[in-house]
């Protein structure tokens, strides 16, 4: 399967550049593990892998540079496009909701946190009406609790 210009995402170059920076960071950390003491030291293999990471990023950039059919944008415009492509308001809200769920798992416990998370998420993602969301959430939490706690015998947060 060959790549076509249509396969490129908005601001892909910017995102790959970001990955290149992270890969260079990984190389620096790898070099700091045991330096270049020997070819079988704990740091040698990570150094090799991080060089491969950098190589892959460079090759992706080279590959993408061939598709000049796409208009070029300023770096600021690329950042804006990347953020818009990745994080629509719905996605951002859902990620924040997941984070809040993770926090309330510690504070309120599994049952209460899950019930509230499911109810808000179902309404927010337009899965169903608030009334339906209430009984679906209660039913789901009950099923999850019975199946996982009593059948699979796993501990719940």
């Amino acid at each position, binding site marked *: *399967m*060959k790549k076509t210009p249509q*396969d490129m*995402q908005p601001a892909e170059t910017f*995102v790959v550049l970001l*990955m290149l920076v992270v890969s260079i960071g*990984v190389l620096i*950390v790898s070099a700091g*593990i*045991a330096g270049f003491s*020997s*070819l*079988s030291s*704990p740091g*040698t*293999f*990570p150094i090799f*892998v*991080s060089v*491969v*990471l950098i*190589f*892959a*990023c460079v*090759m*992706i950039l080279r*590959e993408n540079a061939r598709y000049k059919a796409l208009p070029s944008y300023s770096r600021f415009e690329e950042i804006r496009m990347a953020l818009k*492509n*990745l994080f*629509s308001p*719905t*996605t951002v809200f*859902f*990620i924040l909701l*997941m*984070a809040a*769920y*993770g926090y309330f*798992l*510690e504070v309120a416990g*599994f049952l209460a946190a*899950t019930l509230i*998370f*499911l109810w808000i*998420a*179902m309404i*927010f*993602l*337009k*899965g*169903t009406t608030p009334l339906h969301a209430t009984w*679906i959430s209660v039913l*789901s939490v009950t099923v*999850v609790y019975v199946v*996982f706690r009593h059948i*699979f015998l*796993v*501990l*719940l*947060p």
Partner: protein
Amino acid sequence: MSTYLSYFFVSWLNIKLLLLIAAGTFSGIYVGAIPGLSVTMAVSLLISFTFSWEVNEALALMVGIYCGGVYGGSRSAILLNIPGAPAAIATAFDGFPLAKKGEAGVAIGLTTVISVVGGLIGIVFLSIGGPLISEFSLKFAPRDYMLMAVMGILLVGCLSGKSIYKGIFAGSLGIILGLIGMDPLTGQGRFTFGSVQLMGGIHYVVAMIGLFGVSEALSQIRNAGVTPVQQKIDRIIPPWKWIIEHLPLAIKSSVIGVFIGSLPGTGGDIAALLAYGYAKRSIKNPSVPFGEGAYEGLVAPESANNAAIGGAYIPMLTLGIPGDAVTAVMIGALFIHGLKPGPMLMIETPHLFWFIVGSLVLANVFLLIFGLTGIRIFTRMIELPKGILIPMIIVLSVVGTYSIHNNLMEVWWMLGIGTLGYILRTYGFQMGPIVLGMILGPLLDMSYRRAMMTVRNQPLEFIWDLLRNPISLILSAAILVMILAQTPLPERWANYWNSKKHSKGMDDGATNDDDL
């Protein structure tokens, strides 16, 4: 022989295992059919729930889910024109036009029978090919395993996406994630940034759940509001004559499926597309043109993707190299249960190989039963809105992650890795190579360092070892060819040869003209 038969029938004679395979197959059909849920996601979650179980019980459930899931994808492809799994993409080409004509019931019925035929052919190949390949792979040295692991990661990278470099990046990222924690040889911390929590490393099941659960859910948010079209179901059992008529195509497509499935890194999706292409080329007079509801267009991909299951198990069980993403996750499950897939698996635990073969056959029997019943209730279930499904995926991912070590910190890592996976997925990076890298990375590191220590850190001696051993040489050459195949070199060579041939033809033509 009788010993192998007794291993084969373990799951058939134990009521608990029998029920687990039935439950796995049944739920697998739904998991595969509901767009947004994937077999890989389900198996990743199951590992965390079942790792305290007996290995046979855990495997029975996973084998059922795998078989049911690959088949289940075809249902939503036929009924909704949305393939429930990548392996069912080709099924939608002719399946949905058939449903629009009101023939959804028979289409599902025929698909069920043909899927079982394909599945059984795949298992026959597995039971013959598995022991043969396993015996051969006993000749492998540690450096050959290192090369096989590199080949596996490269193949997954090359074939699962559109850019090999994105595949290489994903595989390498997985290796780095897999190396986080204490070095097993020296006890030194790697990529821990002084954190005691990270000294134990990131469990690959935590990453798997994040990558296949959370990242998939976030990707699904993009089309959460799409409502499916309801279909009418009448007749389900296909006429016997039809099955006989399509059997030759099913057998040929199954052979394609087994071969593609057995290549490390390639699974049912590629097998189904290739089989569909084969059917289109080889059948001159289909019932109706391909793409407009030809039954041949259903038979070819469905027999191939189910046959690929048996094929995918061959490299996984004999070499420890996964055939596709699901078998990559299954390798993780075997490791958790203290088993090491590879050539020694057939020697140390032959019962496990034959148990899997027996369970696969049983799963296909259940597939036939469940596939031909309850379709009307099924159509209601798969119309479940994504707005309900996505939050449920997150809850299951949290429960699955927490159950591994009862550690909430791992839940945060899972959510973080899932979000990172979502970013990577959006930009065309595959999740399969990351998981494979995480599983094979630490093994790769150990085999490399051990091989280096045996040659007293002399790189030339290491290279000489690769060159003088035939197996290492072949594997190194294969890796080199795989890398070169992705560069512009082959295209340049082909152009050079074509132009040379063309100019030679012109010269010959000119000579002939002169003769005349």
